[in-house]
């Protein structure tokens, strides 16, 4: 009963929240309700107030006016340290303590919460395994011995250590090279599909937002310009600013990047299965339409074979399938 009511209510609510630094209004009366388990990405140019908004949620910055509620309770009703221990926090520079080992860094919040040592050790092992890091190799290392991607993984593990329901991430992947960034994004999606945290994620990278977000909140000059799913934003950007963030004329490609090949392919008939020699190029069903299109452009073909994860041929994809959704013309 109580669970149902909580599930219905927003996990994090911002109600006309304003932040002024002296005469400057950094965040201007924004309203935002983030449901439980949603990955909400705040996106905008630097200085738009997205980081300020994030940091107001764990009270690293105190809001000037309005109300911020978590589970319906105002954050000002909590002791600020207790509030922060309940909220995971990961930042771009990782902020790992250089004089502590990886294991000790991860165990920080559980230790603040006075968990018994054995429970902390078990939790550290669990998190290292969850993030695909070998415990015997990494637990005793110091942060300066880690690569950027590994350090950021540890940063995320530390944020998750006390199993918080809310996770705040401030451009966590912003300083990584594109390949590492992409693998960490995939990892975050994989984690989120298992953990269902309520995540507020700040980035200036619209591609990152489109890839990760259940809901994208576009901010400009301290206000929310538009919010909605990636699909909704691409279909109907609210104004020229959102459109330019979405890449203007590249929008079609960004949209294609969001759609899986599996959604558009035609299943192969048995007869066609025998004919496979005709077409040698193939994409995976999990690839995006954008990748399929790129392949077609590069090789100058207008159709591709589609393989599933095991490499079994499962369908075909023509240029027309890419351009026109089948639902639209059938």
């Amino acid at each position: 009963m109580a669970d149902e009511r909580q599930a219905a209510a927003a996990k994090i609510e911002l109600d006309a929240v304003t932040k002024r630094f002296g005469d400057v209004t950094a965040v201007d009366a924004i309203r935002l309700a983030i449901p439980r388990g949603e990955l909400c990405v705040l996106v905008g140019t630097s200085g738009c107030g997205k980081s300020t908004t994030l940091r107001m949620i764990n009270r690293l910055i105190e809001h000037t006016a309005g109300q911020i509620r978590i589970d319906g309770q105002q954050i000002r009703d909590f002791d600020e340290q207790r509030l922060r221990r309940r909220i995971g926090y990961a930042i771009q520079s990782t902020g790992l303590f250089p004089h502590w080992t990886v294991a000790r860094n991860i165990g920080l919040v559980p230790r603040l919460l006075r968990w018994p040592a054995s429970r902390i050790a078990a939790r550290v092992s669990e998190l290292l395994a969850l993030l695909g890091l070998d415990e015997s190799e990494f637990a005793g290392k110091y942060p300066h011995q880690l690569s950027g991607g590994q350090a950021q993984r540890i940063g995320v593990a530390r944020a998750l250590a006390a199993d918080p329901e809310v996770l705040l991430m401030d451009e966590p992947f912003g300083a990584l090279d594109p390949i590492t960034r992409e693998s960490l994004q995939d990892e975050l999606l994989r984690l989120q599909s298992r953990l269902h945290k309520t995540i507020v994620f700040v980035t200036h990278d619209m591609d990152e937002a489109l890839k990760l977000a259940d809901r994208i909140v576009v901010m400009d000059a301290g206000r929310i310009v538009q919010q909605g799913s990636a699909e909704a934003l691409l279909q109907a950007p609210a104004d020229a600013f959102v459109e330019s963030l979405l890449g203007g004329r590249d929008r079609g490609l960004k949209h294609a990047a969001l759609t899986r090949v599996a959604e558009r392919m035609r299943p192969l008939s048995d007869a066609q299965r025998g004919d496979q020699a005709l077409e040698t190029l193939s994409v995976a069903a999990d690839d995006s339409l954008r990748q399929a299109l790129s392949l077609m452009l590069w090789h100058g073909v207008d159709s591709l074979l589609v393989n599933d994860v095991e490499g079994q041929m499962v369908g075909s994809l023509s240029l027309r399938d890419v351009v026109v959704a089948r639902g639209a013309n059938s």
Partner: protein
Amino acid sequence: MSLARRLSAPLAWALLLAALMLLMPLFEEVFRLVAPDTRAVIYQRDSFASLVANHLLLVGVASLCAIVVGMGAAILVTRQWGRDFLPLVSQLASIGQTFPPVAVLALAVPVLGFGSQPTIVALILYGLLPIVRNTLVGIQGIAPGVMESARGMGMSGRQILWQVELPLARPVILAGIRTSVTINIATAAIGSTIGARTLGDPIIAGIVNGNTAFILQGALLIALLALCVDSLFERLQLR
């Protein structure tokens, strides 16, 4: 590194110091070479051991006070609520350093009289700057991301100070204390001009009586004492 090996260098200097301090009369012939015309070649008004002990005591008390006051002040002005006093404290510490210790002695004598007390005051003032400055640099040099995440994880101010700031600033703070103590071992000798018993005694006596051997004996012991303490700090910093 084992404790014994880690302490080998300071121990060597300490042994040398102890040997010279206790066995100075054995070197009478050597010192006679530098002061052939004097009757007494070895300073005898006081035992060298008691001078070394008293010298160390003065420096120890002064350095302890300088550490407590200096680190305390630097920590206070790096707290959120103490930030307004940061420029003031930096300036005061600099002034303490530019003020010549002899002038401090001259000013302190009318208030505190002759002897150890004015010497200690002068040494405290003189030793403050390196400690204050290095504590400030050490704490302010911590990566902003580390401080941000420490706060964001829900650590209290005290936890951040003891578990993050001081351990990370430790090498820099230790370097400051090392400079301060080493300088003060040398500076303490001037306490002898106002009646404190230090290793400056043989030096002053040597200057007054034109006895180079006395001067040399005082200077040698001060140098060995400084080297001994300095190498001890070097080992501490290495940890």
